[in-house]
């Protein structure tokens, strides 16, 4: 017996005139799960998030959020338990960070007393009394996260949460995300950044409105079956010549060569390379996320 999904989409399409922004998407996110949507700009990620929130109505298909129609009348009640961080979040520049958060707390009917704690948690306590107009991009994003956390949300939608953030801010975001998941919240995030995607249980790849693949990262790697590259550094090129003559390798310069192998052949490849004389370093280069997306997109098109 599986629990009913928190976010459920079936055959969801969104069409403007003749162009499909989202086309025939199925997605089911279980309670406590974290799913990342990946894709190029304009692939339909934000539109999908807006539809899940009930801000846009799909042209076709069915969406439920916490078992209800997100655009329906009863949506008002459960919106208090939903957090949303839009892409490029913005606030009234004349208000201070503290005022902004109190404003949103009142709208969510959350006690305003907890806003100071939240500002502390996202690292904005020192800037709480400054106007938002003076905030950096990273600070605005932190404030955006703080408002999404109001009311202990059961579902969070984070649209490109870490775009333009420094490493420290990212780590703070990941810390909060981990806490949320420990508390049993469901997360749906859209992103380009590999470090974001590593936080997710499953990855959904979108291309031109379609969902071309969905699964855990290792699963997707297997599915794409892209070769990985092994880069070998040697102290003396001559010793390795005999080995490289037998295999198809590519010499980058006198002391470095690369060989490619399938995912299941990597152990064997490393073993044979490591036996060579004068090997000083071995670098494993798994296919990048971009390679993976491109490959899965290409496979889906065929």
């Amino acid at each position, binding site marked *: 017996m599986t629990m009913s999904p928190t976010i459920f989409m079936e055959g969801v399409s969104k069409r403007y005139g003749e162009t499909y922004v989202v086309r025939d998407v199925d997605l089911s996110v279980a309670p406590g799960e974290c799913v990342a949507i990946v894709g190029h700009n304009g692939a339909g990620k934000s539109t999908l998030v807006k539809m899940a929130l009930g801000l846009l109505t799909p042209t076709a298909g069915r969406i439920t959020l916490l078992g209800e129609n997100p655009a329906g009348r009863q949506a008002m009640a459960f919106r208090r338990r939903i957090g949303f961080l839009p892409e490029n979040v913005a606030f009234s520049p004349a208000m201070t960070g503290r005022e902004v958060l109190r404003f949103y707390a*009142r709208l969510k009917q959350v006690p305003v007393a907890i806003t100071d704690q939240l500002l502390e948690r996202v690292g904005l306590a020192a800037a709480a009394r400054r106007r938002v107009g003076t905030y950096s991009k990273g600070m605005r994003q932190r404030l955006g996260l703080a408002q999404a956390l109001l009311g202990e949300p059961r579902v969070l939608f984070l649209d490109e949460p870490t775009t333009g953030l420094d490493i420290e801010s990212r780590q703070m975001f990941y810390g909060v995300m981990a806490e949320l998941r420990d508390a049993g919240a469901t997360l749906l995030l859209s992103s380009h950044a590999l470090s974001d995607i590593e936080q997710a249980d499953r990855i959904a790849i979108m291309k031109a409105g379609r969902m071309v693949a969905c699964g855990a990262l290792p699963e997707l790697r297997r599915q794409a079956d892209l070769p990985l590259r092994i880069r070998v550094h040697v102290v003396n090129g001559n010793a390795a010549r005999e080995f490289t003559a037998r295999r198809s390798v590519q010499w980058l310069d006198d002391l470095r060569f690369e060989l490619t192998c399938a995912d299941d052949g990597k152990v064997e490849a490393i073993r044979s390379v490591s036996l060579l004389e004068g090997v000083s370093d071995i670098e494993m280069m798994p296919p990048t996320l971009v390679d993976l997306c491109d490959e899965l997109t290409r496979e889906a098109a065929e």
Partner: protein
Amino acid sequence: MNAIATIAGREIRDGLRNRWALGAVLLMAGLALTLAFLGSAPTGVVGASPLEVTVVSLSSLTIFLVPLIALLLSHDAIVGERDRGTMLLLLSYPLSRWQILVGKFLGHLSILAVATVLGYGAAGAALTLAAGEFDADSLRSFAWMVGSSVLLGAVFVALGYLISATVRERATAAGLAVGIWLLLVLLYDMALLGLLVSDQGRTISAAAFNWLLLLDPADIFRLLNLAGLSETSVFAGMAGLAEQMQFGRAVLLTALATWVAVPLALAAFVFSRKEP
């Protein structure tokens, strides 16, 4: 209800923060004081109450200035939030779109009301200090004028929202706001005048003319303040019109309230239909 108050509170705070409210108060007070003292100078000869004369001159000021301030406040209310990207987040919160609109309306109207009451009140207070006590009739017509100025402001705030909910670009909203102002404050009267002159009273009866005046909120305001009072209408040069006036004060107020309600309802309808 709570959500509406929260939105209204934010608009008021925003207005105070970015000096909007202060600017409006200073502008209203400055112009009102100027008119009050320039206008009351010759009244000793005519023997009219200086406050009554001030009501006439401030009414004319209201017709130009209040719609302008109201449109400046309101035309950006929805399209501006969309443009800055604050609207999307607001819509994901547990409140409906009509609540957002009504909250903004109450906030903007409060700013406008405070600016009008303070600005005109300053002029009234200064006149009282300069000329002494006024009779109850003069005070009543002054209060009516201030109250109906706020109502006229409400009309143009609502019209501004209708523009703001409909268009996609902020520049379009600004252009349309200027257009609405020109049309209702200046052009409609000129067109009506031209029509009367060319018609020479052949087809347009006095009753029809009165109805035509109801189609412009600025004219309703004018009728309410300048023709409504027997004494004032003499100074305002509207005595001739006042004699033929078929509408009472209640009708005029209802007409002005309709001018608030209809654009506001239309704005709410358009806003609820638009995708963010």
